């Protein structure tokens, strides 16, 4: 039965591609190659080890509309997705399509490009073609292949060497689908190229607006971090009730570069975050942090991969989950230390609190180490709230709820504290606090 479904959903999307490919601009050969890979791999189900706990095939049971539909949106609609008190360039995508009308760029220095992906595809500049599809692998991941076949819009950012982009770029992915349209598949594409000695901070949020039907968002992001460059990348999944999201991010690091990322998931029905860091030169630092707070029947799956290919690099991972009701969480963290990557320091920690007997967490660290002079460690804990701490707080007059909130907030705080953009950190502290009270 599952095999039949898999074939039909995959085939449906392949035939959709054949029907629509004439309207997709540029990269025809690449698209054909990508759709062949997609067909070969197929939409994964539980039999696929990488998707063991997240049956993606179940999401694709009904027919989906693959071309983003436009819809009218007011200025106020965007306002509620902004981070308060944050001076940022705002880029708005509506169902995967770049909206010039709702975007506003701030103090973009000379040479910096922040543009729609469709424009970048058309112009196919050197900065674009040198990096597009160079990091996200269409041969091993069905959703990367599918996104690549259909890629038509999204965001392209290019920061030239020696350029510090002062204000963060906040990319707001607004997704909205009405009931009469059937299911919708949105596939935005992102490419961020940060040059040598350059700095960039990106916030990407996924938000749903008046959405009344099933939407799947399959987004693919490639980030190239140049020599000595510093990049912060924050992914926020909060105002996205009802969304089914597969978000694949691949960052490639060059010499002496820093890449810091934080993925915060507070809402969304079904989320799979794939995060891969390719540490491809010496003296790099990578920090991967994540927090997910789930309830109801939410399903949140974080898959990380840190691929240490060169010596003298350091990576740190801290993922925390608070799971309530019948929700499910997954943390799968892979660390490769290749034979050349001597003197690697790689750490990984996954900590989870289950608030209900029906909540589930699956954690799986996978370390593959081929170098002999390295420091690597991983740790995973899952538990309930500390009873002793609860009693201590309650014995001072705090209600059970207040005590619980204080402890959970402290637990989550470890991850939130790592956010380096202050207004974003304050905003997330408030969101987490509110979320824990409910």
């Amino acid at each position, binding site marked *: 039965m599952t095999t039949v479904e898999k074939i039909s959903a995959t085939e449906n999307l392949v035939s959709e591609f054949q029907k629509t490919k004439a309207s997709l601009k540029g990269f025809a050969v690449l698209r054909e190659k990508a759709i062949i890979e997609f067909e070969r791999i197929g939409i994964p189900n539980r039999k696929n080890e990488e998707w063991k706990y997240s049956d993606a095939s179940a999401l694709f049971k009904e027919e989906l509309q693959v071309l983003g539909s436009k819809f009218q949106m007011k200025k106020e609609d965007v306002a509620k997705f902004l981070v308060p008190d944050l001076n940022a360039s705002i880029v708005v995508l509506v169902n995967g399509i770049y909206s010039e009308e709702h975007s506003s760029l701030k103090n973009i220095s000379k040479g910096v490009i922040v543009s729609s992906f469709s424009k970048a595809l058309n112009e196919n500049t050197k900065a674009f073609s040198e990096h597009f599809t160079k990091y996200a692998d269409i041969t091993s991941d069905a959703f990367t292949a599918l996104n690549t076949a259909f890629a038509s819009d999204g965001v392209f950012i290019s920061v030239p060497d020696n350029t510090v982009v002062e204000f963060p770029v906040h990319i707001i992915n607004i997704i909205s689908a009405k009931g009469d349209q059937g299911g919708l598949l949105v596939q935005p594409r992102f490419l961020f190229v940060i040059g040598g000695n350059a700095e960039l901070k990106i916030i990407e949020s996924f938000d749903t607006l008046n959405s009344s039907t099933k939407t799947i968002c399959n987004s693919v992001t490639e980030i190239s971090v140049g020599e000595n460059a510093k990049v912060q990348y924050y992914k926020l999944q909060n105002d996205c009730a009802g969304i089914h999201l597969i978000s694949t991010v691949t960052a490639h690091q060059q010499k002496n570069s820093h890449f810091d990322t934080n993925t915060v998931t507070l809402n969304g029905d079904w989320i799979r975050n794939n995060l891969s860091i390719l540490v491809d030169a010496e003296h790099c630092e990578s920090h991967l942090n994540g927090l997910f707070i789930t309830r109801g029947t939410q399903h949140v799956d974080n898959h990380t991969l840190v691929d240490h290919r060169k010596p003298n690099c350091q990576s740190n991972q801290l993922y925390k989950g608070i799971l309530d009701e019948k929700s499910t969480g997954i943390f799968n963290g892979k660390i490769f230390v290749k034979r050349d990557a001597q003197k690697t320091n790689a750490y990984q920690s996954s900590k989870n609190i289950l608030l209900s007997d029906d909540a589930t967490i699956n954690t799986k660290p996978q370390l593959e180490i081929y170098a002999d002079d390295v420091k690597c460690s991983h740790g995973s804990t899952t538990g309930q709230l500390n009873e002793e701490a609860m*009693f*201590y*707080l309650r014995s*001072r*007059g*705090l209600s*059970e709820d207040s005590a619980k909130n*204080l402890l959970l907030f*402290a637990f989550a705080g470890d991850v939130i504290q790592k956010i380096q953009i202050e207004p974003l950190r304050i905003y997330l502290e408030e969101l987490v606090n509110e979320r824990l009270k409910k």
Partner: protein
Amino acid sequence: MLSIKNLHAGIAGKEILNGINLEIKAGEVHAIMGPNGSGKSTLSSVLAGRSDYNVTEGDVTFNGKNLLEMSPEDRAREGLFLAFQYPIEIPGVSTINFLKTAINELRAYKKLPPMEAKDFLKLVKEKQALVELTTNLANRAINEGFSGGEKKRNEVFQMAMLEPTLAILDETDSGLDIDALKIVANGVNKLRGKERSFVIITHYQRLLEYIVPDFVHVLFNGKIVKSGGKELALELEAKGYDWIKQQELAMGS
């Protein structure tokens, strides 16, 4: 204020308290002494409402209300305070945030409005001075990285902030050097008053040189076997607990 009648209690099916009777009136300071394993900490745990202890028989009333039916937070709101023998560290929870929440929940219980931030900070400063706690608590998590002495001083500081009517000090002297002991005792003495009672649970007489009790009770095998004035503590110090044990054995035989 507190009336304990024929209290039997235990943990995991094992009975530890075998019929305790104790009356404490407003303003009194009672010391409860006893050898290890006599039930001292069980008594404080049962009074504070630790859920893993079961009361099998007896009554405890606090200001005329049934204490045993109350949640730990309601006991605190009614004016009970337990200074823990081993105060735990709670990383990530700021002491100031926690105390502000505690005070305002106590005030809400008494139908009082929340305390103004300015008044709260003033109170913190004043009460910190009482136990010579100089750490800037604003940025510190509860007890995190505190020395043993600082933890105990933090307990007395919290007591001063919350102004209970009955404070139970569970082996507050354990692990304290003489200087810290004096500071803690001094803090407690400043909080003594006509309306506030204390139960000082201790193994040694030493603390009672600094906090002079009105009554001393000796706990042995889950029962109060001897009561007297402050001189009883000195007698215990001189003769040791074996004296009590032998007396009990003699009576039992």
